[in-house]
C-alpha cells in the first residue's frame, strides 16, 4: 500500500506494523467485516418478513395454515440452531439440484446412488463453468437462507406474542366501526404491536449479531476464517513472519462484537422510548407525565 512497504524485510518497529496491517490479505480481512455487516443487513429484514408471515399464519383462521405456522415456530425452538445452520444449506442445495436435475437431466437416472448425490453437469448449481464469485455468492445466499430460516422462527414467536398482547378492546372497537378483518390487521393490530414486539425483537437482533461468526461453519470466508489464517504463525518464507498471533486477532473480533452489541443497545433504548410514546403502557405513561410537567 505504501511505497516503503516494498521490502518488508528491511522494516522495523512501527513501520513494520503499519505495513503488516495494510498488506493485501489484511485488506481482505477488513473487507470480511463488510461481509458480516452485509449478512446482518440482508438477514434481519428477511427473518423479520419470514417471522411476520409465520405469525400471521399461526393466527390464520385456516387450520392447515395455522398448523404450518405453529409447527415452524415450535420445531426450530427445540433444536440447537447450529444443527439448522449445518442442515439448511445442504438440504436447500440438494433440493435445488434435484429439481433442476428432474428438468434438465435424464429423469430415469436416480440422484442418490449409494452414498453419492449425483446430478448431471447441466443441473449443477452453480454451473461448474461459472466464475469464482458466483460460487461465493451462492454460498453466502445459502447461508442467508439458513439464518433467515432459524431467526424467522424466533421472530414468528415474538410477533405472534406481540399480536396477542395488543389490547382486545382496540380490536373490538375497530370491529364496531365496521372494519373488515384485513383492515383491522393493517390499521390497528400491526401499528400497535411493535411496542410489545420490541423487547423480543431487540433480543433477537442481539442473538443474530452473536450468531454471525457461525458463518465460518458454512465455509464462508468471514472474519473468523481470516483471523485464523492471518493469526497462525508465519515462517520466514512469508513477507511478514511472526509467531502465533491468533489470540490478538480474536481479541480484536471480541472487541468488534462488544462494540456492535453496545451500540445496538443504545439504539434499542432510544427506539423503545420512541415507540412507547402515546401507548397505554407504564413506559408510555411515564413519558406522558414527564411531558405535562415540563
Amino acid at each position, binding site marked *: 500500500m505504501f511505497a516503503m512497504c516494498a521490502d518488508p524485510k528491511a522494516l522495523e518497529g512501527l513501520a513494520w506494523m503499519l505495513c503488516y496491517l495494510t498488506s493485501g490479505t489484511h485488506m481482505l480481512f477488513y473487507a470480511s467485516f463488510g461481509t458480516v455487516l452485509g449478512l446482518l443487513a440482508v438477514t434481519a429484514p428477511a427473518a423479520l418478513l419470514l417471522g411476520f408471515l409465520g405469525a400471521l399464519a399461526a393466527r390464520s383462521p385456516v387450520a392447515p395454515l395455522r398448523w404450518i405456522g405453529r409447527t415452524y415456530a415450535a*420445531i426450530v*425452538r*427445540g*433444536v*440447537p*440452531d*447450529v*444443527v439448522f445452520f*449445518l*442442515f439448511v444449506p*445442504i*438440504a436447500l442445495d*440438494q433440493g435445488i439440484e434435484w429439481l433442476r436435475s428432474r428438468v434438465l437431466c435424464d429423469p430415469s437416472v436416480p440422484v*442418490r446412488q449409494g*452414498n*453419492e*448425490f449425483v446430478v448431471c453437469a447441466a443441473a449443477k448449481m452453480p454451473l461448474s463453468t461459472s466464475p469464482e464469485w458466483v460460487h461465493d455468492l451462492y454460498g453466502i445466499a445459502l447461508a442467508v437462507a439458513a439464518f433467515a430460516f432459524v431467526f424467522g422462527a*424466533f421472530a414468528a*414467536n415474538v410477533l405472534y406474542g406481540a399480536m396477542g398482547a395488543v389490547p382486545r378492546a382496540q380490536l373490538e372497537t375497530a370491529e364496531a366501526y365496521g372494519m373488515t378483518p384485513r383492515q383491522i390487521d393493517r390499521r390497528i393490530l400491526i401499528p400497535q404491536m411493535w411496542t410489545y414486539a420490541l423487547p*423480543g425483537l431487540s*433480543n*433477537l437482533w442481539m*442473538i443474530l*449479531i*452473536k*450468531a*454471525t*461468526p*457461525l458463518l*465460518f*461453519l458454512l465455509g464462508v470466508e468471514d472474519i*473468523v476464517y481470516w*483471523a*485464523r489464517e492471518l*493469526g497462525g504463525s508465519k515462517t520466514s518464507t512469508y513477507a511478514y513472519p511472526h509467531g*502465533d498471533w*491468533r*489470540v490478538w486477532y*480474536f*481479541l480484536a*473480533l*471480541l472487541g468488534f*462484537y*462488544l462494540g456492535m*452489541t*453496545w451500540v445496538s443497545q443504545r439504539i434499542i433504548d432510544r427506539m423503545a422510548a420512541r415507540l412507547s410514546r402515546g401507548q397505554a403502557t407504564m413506559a408510555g405513561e411515564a413519558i406522558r407525565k414527564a411531558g405535562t410537567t415540563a
Partner: protein
Amino acid sequence: MNQCLQTIADYGLRSIGIGERLLPRTDFTLCQQFTLIGSGLIWNLYFVALSLTFGFVLANGLALAKASRNPWLRCPANGFIFVFRGSPLFIQFFLAYSALVLLPRDGVQLFGLSLSTGWLTRAWAGALIVLTLNTAAYSAEIFHGALMNVPKGDLEAADAYGMTGWKRFRRIVWPTMMRLAWPAYTNEAIFLFHATTLVFFSAFPAIQQMGDSLYYASYFADKTFNPFVAYPIVAGYFILLTLCLIGLFGVVNRRLNRHLPGAAKPLRYRPNLFR
C-alpha cells in the same frame, strides 16, 4: 437385531474412547447412526451438567457483587457480565483456545511446583471453562434481576423477626430470588445445552474422533451426502433431552413455589432461546 446390539456394544461409548477404534466408513446403517450420535450425547450432557453446576455458584456470587454498593465488587462484575454477554460464544471458544495454546508446553513453574498445562487445551477442560464463565454471566444477569425484584415486604418481615445479614439472606432473600429467577434460568439452561454443540465446531479439536453428537452427525452427513437422516436424529435426541431438562427444572420450580397457593403451575414448554 443382533447386529444392532453388536453395533451398540462397539460404538455406544465410542465418544469417550471405549470400544471400536475405527468409525464406520461405508454402508452406514440407521443403527450405527443412532448409536454413534447417541454416544456423542455423553459429551453434551457432560458439558451441560458440569458447567451448569459451576456456573450456578459463580452466577450467585456475581449477582450479589453486581448488586453490591462497593464499586470494587460491582465494576468487575459488571465488566465480566458485559464481556461475556456482549460477545459471541463462538468467538469466546476461539479466543480461549488460542490463548490456552500459548501456555508453555512443559508446564508452569509456580512456587517450585511444576503445573502441566496441556490438559487445558483439551475440550473437556478448556471448553468447560468457557461454557461455565459464559453461563455464569448470563445467569448472573437473571439472578440480579430477580434479586432486584425481591418484594420489599419480605425484607421488612425479616427485619421484624430480627433477622439480619447472612441469616436473612439465606432464609428470605435467596429462596425468593431463586423462585423469581427460575423460569428464566430454565431457558438459560436449555440455551446452554444447545450451545454445547458448538464445542467441537469451534477451535477445540475432537481428538481421535471423540466428539459430541453433532460432530458425528456431520461426519455421517459428509460421508453420505445426505443431511436428511443424521441431522433429524440429532434434532430428535435434543428435543427429547430438552423435554427431560424442562421436567427436571419443573420439579425444582414446584419445590421453590411449594408454599404459594396455586403457584405450582408446571413450567410451560417455551424454550424460546432468548437470553
